C-alpha cells in the first residue's frame, strides 16, 4: 500500500490531484474496491482520463457507455455497484458531476 502514501484522498475517497495518479496507484485503488484490473478495465480508465483531461470532469455513466460502446450491464460487471463513481476513483478523478 506504499503507493497510497504519495497521494491525497478527500473524505469520500477521491484523489484531490489527478496529476499524482500513476498506473500503480490505479491498481492499488482498484484492489481497495475489490477489483483486479484487466484490459477491459483499463480501456475504461484510459477513456475516462482522456475525457476528464478534455472536459475537466469525470465522465458520467452514460458518457462511458456511449463513449466506449459497451452496455451498462457490461460496465456493471466490470465495476459493480456505482461504476461511474468507482471508475472516477480508480482513475484519480473527482466525483462525477451527475451527483448534484
Amino acid at each position, binding site marked *: 500500500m506504499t503507493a497510497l502514501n504519495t497521494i491525497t484522498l478527500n*473524505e*469520500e475517497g477521491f484523489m484531490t490531484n489527478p496529476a499524482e495518479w500513476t498506473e500503480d496507484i490505479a491498481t492499488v485503488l482498484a484492489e481497495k474496491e475489490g477489483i483486479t484490473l484487466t484490459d477491459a478495465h483499463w480501456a475504461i480508465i484510459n477513456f475516462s482520463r482522456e475525457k476528464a483531461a478534455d472536459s475537466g*470532469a469525470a465522465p*458520467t*455513466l*452514460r*458518457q462511458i457507455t*456511449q463513449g466506449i460502446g459497451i452496455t*451498462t*450491464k457490461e460496465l*456493471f460487471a466490470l465495476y*459493480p*455497484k*456505482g461504476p461511474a*463513481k468507482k471508475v472516477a476513483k480508480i482513475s484519480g478523478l473527482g466525483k462525477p*458531476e*451527475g*451527483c*448534484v
Partner: protein
Amino acid sequence: MKTFLILGAGTGGTMVANKMAEILDTQEWRIVIVDRDETHYYQPGFLFIPFGTYSPSDVVKPKRNFLPPQVDVIFSDIELIEPDKNRVKLGRAKKTINYDYLVISTGSHIHPEETPGLDDEAAWMKNVFPFYTLEGATKLGNFLKFWKGGRMVLNISEMPIKCPVAPLEFLFLADWFFHERGIRDKVEIVFATPLPGAFTKPRASAVLGGMLDDKGINLQPEFTIMEVDHAKQVIRSYDETEIGYDLLVTIPTNMGAEVIGHSGMGDELNFVPANKHTLQSDKWENVWIIGDAGNVPASKAGSVAHFMLDVLIENIHRHMEGLEPLPDFDGHANCYIESGFEKGVLIDFNYDVEPLPGKYPLPGFGPFSLLKESYANHWGKMMFRWMYWNILLKGGEMPFESQMSMAGKWE
C-alpha cells in the same frame, strides 16, 4: 430591430423575459418567448398533491399572466434550433425566428421509456406512478387515498434529477400521511437510490439518512435500476438485486428537451453544455442557459434558476457592450426540505461548500435553522408558493443573495 429570443416560459424563461423587458429599449429590441404550453406549473407544488395538501388548481396559472405586455409570446412547439444560422424553426406556429441573442430555458423532463418495463401499460399509472408531472401526482393521490397498505418503493432511475431533495421529501411526507391515515404499521417504505446514501453531499446525507432511519424508512443505496418486471412486481438492478413492490413511485431518467438533442446542441441527456460560472454556451457566444436546461453541475431547481438570474442578465448585458462575461455564478442552491409533521429542514450550498449546519439569516423572516428540523422551515416552504407567483416569476426583489454566504454557517 434586434431580436432577443427565449425558448421556454417556465421559471427561468419567465424571469429572464421580465428582467430583459426592464432593461432593453423597445425601440431597438423585440423580446420573443416561445413555449408549447399555455399553462405555468408551480412544480414544487407537485410534491404535495399525492397527499391531498394541494389540489391541481393550486399549482397552475396561465403563463401569460406572468409575462409583461411588451414581450411577444408565441405558443408553439420548437421544431429545430440552428445556432450556426442564429435561427429557430417553430412547428405549430409555422414560423422561423432569426435572433441576435438566444436564452435556452427549455428545462428537463422525465423519460420513463429509458428504463425497460417502467412505462408498461399494464402497470403505468396503475401501481407505478411518477410525481414529477401533474398527471402522475394527481393519479398517485387518487391511488393513495384508498390504499390499504403494503410495500411502497421509491426509486430514482439515474442522476441528475430535478430537485434532488424531492424524493426525500416525498418519503418524509408519505410517512406522515400514512401515520395520519392510521395505516403506517401496514406500510413498508423502501428508498432505492443509485447514490451511496440518502443525498448527494456527505454531511447532509448523514443527517438526512439518520432521519430516514428514525422514521423506519429502509434505505437501499447503490441500486441502479435495470428494469421493471411488473408481472413479478419487482425492480431489478444491473447487479441483479431485486426489490419487490406493491406500489412503485418512480423518478425516471431526467433529460433536457428533445429539440436540444436533434438540433445537435446537447450532451448525452440533451442538456446544453455551458460554462458553469458564466452560463454562456460553450460553443455559441450569443447562446445562454438558465435553470435545468444546461449541463452545469448545480441542482436542477427553481431556487438555482433564481440565483442564476442576476449573473445571467449581467453577463448578457456585458456581452452586448463588448465586455467579457464574469464568472460569478457559484452554484448556489437553497432548498427547504419538508420532513413531515409540519417540520422542515433547510439546506444552503454551492459548487464548493456542501450543506452545513447553522442559522440562515433572512431579513424579515428568518433566521431559519440549517441542516436541522424546525417548524419555521416548514412555514418557510409553504410561504414560498405565494412568493413564487407574486414576486419571483416577475423578476421582483427577493430577500436572497445570488451568491452563497458563509454567514451563520458552522464549519
